[in-house]
């Protein structure tokens, strides 16, 4: 008898690889995304160590210098080192992008779950407000909001968070509608568990997957939008080193001094692209319908 149990335990042991890890292991593109983001974040955080230039210090004598050993990515119209501006700017561009999505996803989950669980008037009110937001093109509305709030990086982030809420509300709501009819939620009701607890413990954790997927895919978009608002002068104000703002000023010099808008552009493209790759990978892992 005891020998039997022993063999059973021995068989159980080797199955230690986590399914998430297993799926991730073979997904090369996701790894590329992770590596790019990791490098960008690391270099942004280590910016003071990696460059000795102050990103906002004007040194007019060295303006428009091409890439060289001294300034790897050259300098801009007032002689600031573009590499150090990109690295410091990474903190803002990535940070604000991630923050905007975190805020919007959090609000979206709360509103969507309430809407789906209680239904009726609450549902109608919330969803009609979301329809109002959805009625406008995302970028136009973000621009209008950012302009109304006053041009600054924080307001740009807030504007993006607001215009992206409806997607998350709808996602969370539709998941809630499905879960609400599930037997385990109904049993939880018959076991007398409080509705708030049912929402927090039974519905939200089980409706998170699509929200997480959407959020990772949206971070790249949010970074682009922040840059877009910056480009239009509605985001970070000079001399703040922000990628969009740098491109905005730099594109005028593109023909004569190609490096000025190009390098921030490459970083913007790479990080947005990398977040999308990660998003795709996470979707493959979390989405039970994907068969990879």
């Amino acid at each position, binding site marked *: 008898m005891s020998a039997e149990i022993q063999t059973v335990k021995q068989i159980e042991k080797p199955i230690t690889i986590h399914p998430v890890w297993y799926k991730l292991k073979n997904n090369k593109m996701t790894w590329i995304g992770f590596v790019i983001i990791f490098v960008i974040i690391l270099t942004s955080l280590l910016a003071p160590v990696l460059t000795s230039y102050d990103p906002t210090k004007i040194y007019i004598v060295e303006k428009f210098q091409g890439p060289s050993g001294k300034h790897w990515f050259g300098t801009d119209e007032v002689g600031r080192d573009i590499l150090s501006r990109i690295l410091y700017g990474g903190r803002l561009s990535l940070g604000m992008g991630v923050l905007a999505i975190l805020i919007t996803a959090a609000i979206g989950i709360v509103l969507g779950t309430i809407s789906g669980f209680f239904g009726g008037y609450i549902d109608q009110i919330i969803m009609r407000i979301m329809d109002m937001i959805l009625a406008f093109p995302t970028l136009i509305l973000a621009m209008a909001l950012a302009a109304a709030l006053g041009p600054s990086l924080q307001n740009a982030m807030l504007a993006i968070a607001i215009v992206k809420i409806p997607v998350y509300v709808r996602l969370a709501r539709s998941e809630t509608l499905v879960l609400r009819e599930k*037997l385990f939620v*109904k049993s939880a009701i*018959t076991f007398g568990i409080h509705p708030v*607890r049912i929402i927090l413990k*039974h519905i939200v954790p089980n409706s998170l997957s699509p929200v997480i997927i959407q959020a990772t895919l949206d971070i790249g978009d949010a970074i682009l939008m922040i840059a877009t608002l910056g480009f239009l002068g509605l985001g970070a104000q000079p001399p703040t080193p922000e990628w969009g703002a740098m491109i905005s000023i730099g594109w005028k010099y593109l023909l004569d001094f190609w490096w000025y808008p190009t390098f921030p552009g490459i970083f913007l493209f790479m990080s947005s692209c990398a977040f999308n790759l990660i998003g795709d990978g996470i979707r493959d892992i979390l989405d039970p319908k994907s068969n990879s």
Partner: protein
Amino acid sequence: MLLEMKDVSVEFTGMRGSVQVLKNISLNISKGEILGIVGESGSGKSVTALSILRLLGNNAKTSNGEILFNGTDLLKIRTKEIQALRGKKIGMVFQEPMTALHPTMKIGRQLAEVIERHRAVSKKAAFRLAVQALKDVHIHDPELVAAKYPFELSGGMRQRIVIALAMAAPPDLLIADEPTTALDVTIQAEILNLIKELNNKNDTSVLIITHDMGVISQLCQRTLVMYGGEIVESGSTNGVLKNPKHPYTKALLNALPDLADPAQPLQAIPGEIMDLRHRPNGCSFAARCSIAGEYCRTHQPALVEILPQHYTACWKGEKEQND
């Protein structure tokens, strides 16, 4: 009397008008009693159970009657009050154990959550009680199982856990809606024994809903037979099974496959369950009844006491008695 349903009718309202799914249902359960409801699919058994806990959807309307639980009318109290009764005074077990548990929460946590809600205990104590509750429903290695997720367990184990959850308070009344339908026969017997044991130990009354005559004969002291949202026969289990008075009950018992004589073809009840949208004027079973006469089709029979404590709603049954 622990639970008393008096003349309860339920209507479902849809886009194409309303349908009466329960018609003047009266039943009662006393403390410690096990009452069974049998009937085929669509006869209103589950609706009866759900109406007690007020778990029917928004489109359902309980039009008249009262449901007295320990003297309070469950149909009149506020939502908050019925919420407080659920789980604490009335527990419920559903048919499918595979989906009745939270898929991403460990068993022990799920049990502790319910225990915390109903008994004033600390988190740690709740977890200890959860393990004890698992032991009470005869789960081996309760500590190990408490740390597992539902998908790691078999159907029989899950149904035990669902029962443990429903019994966590422990409630005065346990409603079991086809608790063994999704399980194989050997597990069925274990679950039934478990229900019986919990009934003995805590003096919990049980309302068991099933289409399985075997379950009824093993567990229940009294049995109701439902057809088309009405009770057509009620009485002691022995009386109903051994000496059925209503032709529907007779047909149901006839439909049981005979293991001793497997060559015999199965006896199905001809026709299908009536369309509730078009209730006939007379007896609702008349269209499928082998002995129904013209009178049955035009006049509705009432539930009458045909033998002591044995009621049936059939004109022919009464006649038989009168002849």
